[in-house]
């Protein structure tokens, strides 16, 4: 190996010498912030964010519509309506959708727009690039989906047995937390697909809306291989019942149905996120992204 000092340059800079942050940590943070800021700028300028926001805010209308049109006793339960909307719509449908909208493009966009050689020739840790962009995705999607859930909660208070009181807000917080974890796990999966495949949206659609739904109908433990299994487990159902008989029945039911419980589900979702983010960083380090265009050039 050649001595690094042998490459000392007697160069007269035609532009001022750039200042790089000193220290590995400082450099890492600079790159992380750059990646976050750049990705946030790009996301906020895309037209698809308007489309995503419109779809995401649709659930807000439903409690209001129910309050206005329905006379059903069941429909009048604000808690029920909110639980269904937050669980089914926000967490298990819209969170994967936002992941497909934004997270698949975290790396996929650079591949598509051919800017990835510029990214990969920057002297930045690949993990800072990936994490910064993932942070921007999480911020944007949480802001949209979290606000939608909050408004849905507010709209559901128009119905009975739900209010902005301590109980109601605790419930809201639990759902918001589950939503955040859903966005993280689904986003990490979408990011990973964007890093390893050329068609992340199609494969993501098949997994998130095809396989996950199918797996819930298959008897046994197949649904453990879905993200939805764990996001659903995060949701507060009747587990808080103080009735001992009901609690025991529920525990028995959980055993039979291979339920894992909220805390284990949360840990699993965090684990899925960490593994997929780590996997994405590894893929970015080893994959030759420009290969497709290289042959014959």
């Amino acid at each position, binding site marked *: 190996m*050649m001595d690094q000092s042998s490459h000392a*340059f007697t160069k007269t*800079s*035609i532009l001022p010498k750039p*200042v790089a942050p000193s220290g590995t940590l400082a*450099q890492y943070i600079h790159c992380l912030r750059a990646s976050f*800021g750049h990705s946030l700028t790009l996301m906020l300028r895309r037209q698809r964010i308007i489309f995503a926001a419109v779809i995401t805010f649709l659930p807000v209308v439903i409690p209001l519509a129910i309050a206005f049109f329905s006379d059903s006793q069941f429909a009048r339960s604000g808690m029920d309506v909110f639980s269904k909307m937050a669980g089914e719509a926000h967490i298990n449908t819209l969170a994967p959708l936002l992941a497909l909208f934004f997270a698949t493009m975290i790396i996929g966009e650079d591949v598509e727009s051919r800017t990835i050689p510029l990214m990969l*020739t920057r002297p930045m840790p690949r993990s800072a690039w990936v994490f910064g962009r993932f942070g921007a995705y999480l911020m944007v999607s949480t802001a949209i989906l979290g606000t939608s859930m909050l408004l849905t909660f507010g709209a559901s208070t128009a119905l009975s047995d739900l209010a902005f009181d301590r109980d109601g807000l605790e419930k809201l917080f639990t759902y918001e937390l589950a939503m955040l974890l859903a966005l993280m796990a689904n986003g990490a999966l979408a990011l990973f697909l964007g890093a390893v495949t050329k068609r992340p949206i199609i494969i993501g659609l098949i997994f998130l809306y095809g396989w996950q739904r199918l797996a819930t109908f298959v008897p046994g433990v197949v649904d453990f291989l879905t993200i939805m299994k764990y996001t659903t487990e995060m949701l507060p159902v009747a587990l808080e019942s103080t009735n001992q008989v009901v609690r025991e029945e529920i525990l028995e039911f959980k055993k039979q149905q291979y339920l894992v419980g909220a805390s284990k589900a949360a840990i699993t979702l965090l684990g899925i996120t960490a593994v997929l983010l780590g996997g994405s960083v590894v893929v970015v380090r080893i994959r030759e992204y*420009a290969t497709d265009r*290289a042959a014959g050039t």
Partner: protein
Amino acid sequence: MSTIISAKNVSKWFGEVVALNDLNVEIETGVTGLLGANGAGKSTFIKLALGLYRPSRGSVTVFGESPRNNAAVLRRIGYCPELDTFYDNMTGYEYVYWLSRYWGMSAKHAQVAAEQACDRVGMTERMDDPIEEYSKGMRQRIKIAQALSTDPDLLFLDEPMAGLDPQGREEMFSLIRELGDNGYSVVVSSHILYEVERVTDNVVLLFQGSIMAHGKVREIRSLIDAHPHTIHVDCSAPRILATHFVQDESVLHLDFEGESRLVIRTKDPNACYARINAAALEPDVEVTRIHCADDSLQAVFDYLVK
């Protein structure tokens, strides 16, 4: 002069396509032209040197180290890709700014660096316009600006003259020469020999994934001394001038173009030049121009390829 890029027994293939085949080359400081027809392996070589590719066989080092995922090496490199590589909905200034931020600059430093780099390539007036509104030449210049903004020691310019108008080309030639004069190392790839010739006489010739020749144009030409050189002499009396070469054994062929040009094909150009100089002193032979077509890289390339 010191070696900055070293490729040892480098091969790179993509499936069944061999892009580079057992390449051995050392590129030194200064401006180097990477020359070859489309498909010769120029871009592949650059991407190997940038660490975007791993060699299928052999090794590539830049500043003595492998460039792949190596921040210490990449910090000293600037890259202007051949293709348009832009983000949507972004101005030229923002493009340079964000790429400077990715280099590790703070927001404040990146702002200054982006402004100065845009200014250096003459894009100050248009830097706040969306890139989508730029002409091809402006796009090329803003790509150069992002490569310059980090003041790299080594700059890779992949087909930098592509799409530029004549004035843009002249400005690009001038910029590259200035970079070289100021001690920057620049690797310029092109498939147009004239372009490379305008910025350097130090070339690496690639042909079908292999090095065909490497060195100064004249050094390369010495490799092909077996080939005759063609010298054009414009003068008032070409037939009188021709009599000086009739007995010369190194002259293979004499020809006349019009009434004022003698074309000499010789195996010994130096002796030929000396004889022309001597003849030019005679009063009835007024030499107005001597031109050796083989000084052109195109001729060298044609010789080597054929």
